[in-house]
């Protein structure tokens, strides 16, 4: 079944304007590259876009756990909904990760499947990613393939992101404390829509988790936005 082009949404003009992350119309495979293997910023960016209320299958390669830590349910609980709905798989190698992800994608009751791979394993070729994309589209389960310390080779993913952390928004009460997280996300390949690069931040108090604001570049403005959001 062919995937329809994603809806293109207007680029925000000013800081604080309501905006959402470009998303595919149907659940499919998205690939996400962490800008730096030890930058955990992408977790917040990703979990913000996951459907709530359904179980989540999170597959981590052993190497990814050793290098960048294990998923910590109390931390993602606030964003991804009920942490009890998490099924965590620790896979020995990339081949097991891909197998577990594909098994998960056959189960339509899941909300999303997230797989983390370290480096550029040989098992991850175009065929493997293509299989994941087809499985995700067939069952309607969103699939995120996270690449830590990997190179953007040929891939069948419909959307490919590169996400880095940005200095956070101003904390509403404490100017020295880190505030709401912000990200610099680059959509460098997308099917049916123009690539782009945006600064996102989590919109505090938003009804829907994927609503985000474009984070302003300079701190003075950030303070202004932070004040507005906390008001």
């Amino acid at each position: 079944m062919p995937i329809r082009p994603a809806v293109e949404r207007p680029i925000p003009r000013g800081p604080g304007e309501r905006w959402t992350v470009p998303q595919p119309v149907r659940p499919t495979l998205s690939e996400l590259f962490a800008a730096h293997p030890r930058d955990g910023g992408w977790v917040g960016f990703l979990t913000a876009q996951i459907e709530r209320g359904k179980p989540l299958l999170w597959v981590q390669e052993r190497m990814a756990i050793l290098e960048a830590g294990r998923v910590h349910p109390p931390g993602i609980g606030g964003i991804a909904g009920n942490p009890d709905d998490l099924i965590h798989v620790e896979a020995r190698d990339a081949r097991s990760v891909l197998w577990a992800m594909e098994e998960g994608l056959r189960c339509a009751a899941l909300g999303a499947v997230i797989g983390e791979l370290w480096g550029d394993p040989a098992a991850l070729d175009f065929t493997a990613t293509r299989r994941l994309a087809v499985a995700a589209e067939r069952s309607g389960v969103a699939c995120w393939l996270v690449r830590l310390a990997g190179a953007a080779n040929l891939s069948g993913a419909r959307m490919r992101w590169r996400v880095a952390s940005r200095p956070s928004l101003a904390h509403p009460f404490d100017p020295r404390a880190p505030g709401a997280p912000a990200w610099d996300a680059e959509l460098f390949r997308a099917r049916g829509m123009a690539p782009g690069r945006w600064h996102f931040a989590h919109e505090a108090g938003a009804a829907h988790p994927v609503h985000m604001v474009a984070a302003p570049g300079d701190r003075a403005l950030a303070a202004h936005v932070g004040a507005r959001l906390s008001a």
Partner: protein
Amino acid sequence: MSGRDCPPDAPVVLTVEGTHGPLILAGTSSAAECGARAGARLTDARALEPKLVAVAADPAGDTALVERLARWSARWSPLVEVDGHDGLRLDVTGVAHLFGSEAALAEDMRQRFAALGLTARITIAPTAGAAWALARYGHSPRSPAAGRAFPRGEKDLAALLASLPVAALRLSPQAVRTLERLGLKTIGALVGVPRRSLARRFREADNPLDALDRALGRKPEPLSAAPFEPPPRSLLRLEEPVTHGEAAAQALERLIPDLVAQLERRQLGARRLALTGFRVDGSTAVASVATSIPSREPKHLQRLLADQVGALDAEYGFDGFGLEASWTEPLGGAQESLVEEPSGTRDIARLIDRLSVKLGPGRVRRPRPRESHLPEVASGWSAALEDRPSPDPSGLREGRIRPQRLLDRPEAIAVVYATPEGVPRRFVWRRGVHDIARVEGPERIAPEWWRAPSNSRLRDYYRVEDSAGRRFWIYREGVIGDGRGGAPDWFIHGLSG
């Protein structure tokens, strides 16, 4: 057990703790000859025989042994009941001829128990009460013939029981004492007393007349043995041993429908399945899988086992296969589905089963928060195959900001700080230098003194953000001058996004 080490004829007694020191629960015959009676104090018995060996009794172990023996005794009779804490009751009606005669049956039992290293006192009698009495009191040296004679009619029975003490009627100690005070020491004496006068004296529950009637077969006393149901199992015997690799998979295909039919008949679902291949040389190869919810769906079970079964090594060939559901749970006759709409929980349970079989149960896990202040303990995991405990909300929903990723082991970092007491300005983690731009904290987590060793140090956690915007969770272990070590070390524990 220290009693094992002493010579076989040594006087050994089993003791239990009484109010005033150890009491003798039971003893060997040589101990009995030395004057050690059951119920006596150990010190008294030691005064009579200083060489007495005392071993602490293990009542729970004895009960378990008796239960195991009860199951084993099903070889003689389908109805076996555990009687008290040291007896077995078998209904051998219509069974004895299979062993030749009643005497042959009893002899077979005696020999087999002796082979287990157990001395059994075996009696066959028309009533359960009489068997109890003869087994426990009929073997005394005073009436050696009683234990070996098998009474037939009521008269025969009455004659045999007549010489036994009244305690053989399974009465309470009070009733026995009352009867003995009345001078009625044997059952024969009791039979001679007019029924009416006896009936007036005793309560209904503890009536010696009742017990007498049951022993003599005037009142029924049926066995209430719960039938032991073996786990559902299906067997396939082969005429010729097979060695080729697919044999086990083919056997599985044949066995699963049979097992599923058994499960369906008994309204059960399998939680653990094992396919055993019986090799020609008598050894076995086992492939087993577990499921997270009870299931009797043939396709699912076959798929789970298929991988494991392929790895069975035939060696010199299999000549039989057995498929057993060793752990089952009740599963109603639920309709699979009316329309093609998968139900979520079942699908996820099947996914967990498949993942666990392939990757190992320890690698497919669910969060299981625990009561602890330490973050690595509080966010525990448990195998997804296990039954899910009721969620414990205290660990997770505290509203504290926690990192989204936690390192399995906190890693030491090198820090540069402006003041030793305060927050670092820069740290080095895995050769990457991070200049701290913003910081929040500390959040002090004290060591759990009820679990941790007394010299463990508190942790001051800081949420920090470096100049590139990466957020980390670092802590200082201990404070300067807490008397639990030198200068405190810094660790990184988590990453957040």
